[in-house]
């Protein structure tokens, strides 16, 4: 039973991600598009952890650990800058 639930949950989360991609297309601001990257970050962690249990591969938990550790790097690259630098050049 649980062997069926785990892959089903993975599929559910993948479909969830696909739905979240609508936000990249629709925007409207750069920050909105960035939210999808955030959604991918948090959802892929859950998928990796479920895969680790399902495929019986504990090393995938280390991959998930690395994912959460580096999740903030992309947000920091774009947003962690002084505000007078924040120009309006991002695309709509």
């Amino acid at each position, binding site marked *: 039973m649980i062997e069926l639930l785990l*892959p089903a949950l993975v599929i559910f989360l993948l479909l969830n991600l696909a739905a979240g991609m609508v936000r990249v297309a629709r925007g409207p601001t750069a920050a909105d598009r960035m939210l999808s990257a955030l959604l991918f970050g948090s959802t892929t962690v859950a998928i990796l952890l479920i895969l680790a249990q399902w495929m019986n591969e504990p090393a995938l938990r280390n*991959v998930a650990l690395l994912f959460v550790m580096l999740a903030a790097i992309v947000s920091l*690259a774009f947003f962690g800058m002084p505000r007078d630098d924040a120009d309006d*050049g991002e695309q709509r």
Partner: protein
Amino acid sequence: MTDLAVDVLIGAGLLALAWQTIIGKSLFRGIVLFVVFGLTMALAWARMGAPDLALAEAAIGAGVTGALMLVAFRRLVRIRPEQSAQPALRRSRLALPVAVLAGSLVAVIGLAVVAVERDPAVAGQAVAQALTDSGLGNPITGVLLLYRNLDTLLEVAVLLAAFLAARTVFGEDEARSPTPSRREVPLVGALLAIIVPLTILIATHLLLAGSREPGGAFQAGAVLAASGVLLVLAGRLQPAAGLSSWPALGLTLGLMLFSLIGLAVMAFGAPLLALPGLWAVYLIETAMMLSIAMTLVLLFAGASGLRRGSP
């Protein structure tokens, strides 16, 4: 059945993301999609049972490359606002012939791979036996350091060559720091104080785990590099002109130590690059990890040196 569904979903998602990344209507959208593609790619490697590649893809593909592209985009917005607004893709008459050529190349290689007759009984068994004797439980690290050690050495050399090539391009201009951070952004200090010590631990874990389970010098180096990139982004490390002594040592340590030990064994009658024992493997892996991390961070900072920045 469910296995197939998961694989098909990930595969289809990768294709769709790749397509959307290159035809994206704007550059910024393409960058976000590229990051998302990297995360999905790591998921695909994980699903294929290759945590080694998933680790490297997560750290370099999604983390460092994504950050590099975003920083490059910000700079583009500053110097050429009109160009950053253009679509990422331009039409070209060359596109079709190039696509046909590339497609046929992939097809030929794919057919060749399928046509190769595999004989699992010979090489694989011998390698597995030799690895058990050497004490290295992880086949990937074992093969890299015991059988393909010349390749591994050359890979480290290639990384150094790439840095030298990049250095001739970015010159000695100190002003081109990627993030001219003037004031501490709230919470970023707390993030660094937690994440950076943790990456040291995880890198050591991956390095040591590399001898038995997924991990190794490249993964550990990529993790260290990612935390270095965080420090550069937050302005704690600033790009500096001139090559000072410790970055230079870091850059070349792996290559030097590997070649030194590889040559030294010849004095004892062993063949070139035959590693004398497990201690040498650990020593070389540590040096390689430091070199890989230093090269990646310097390439990201676009400078040949680093100095401490104000918090």
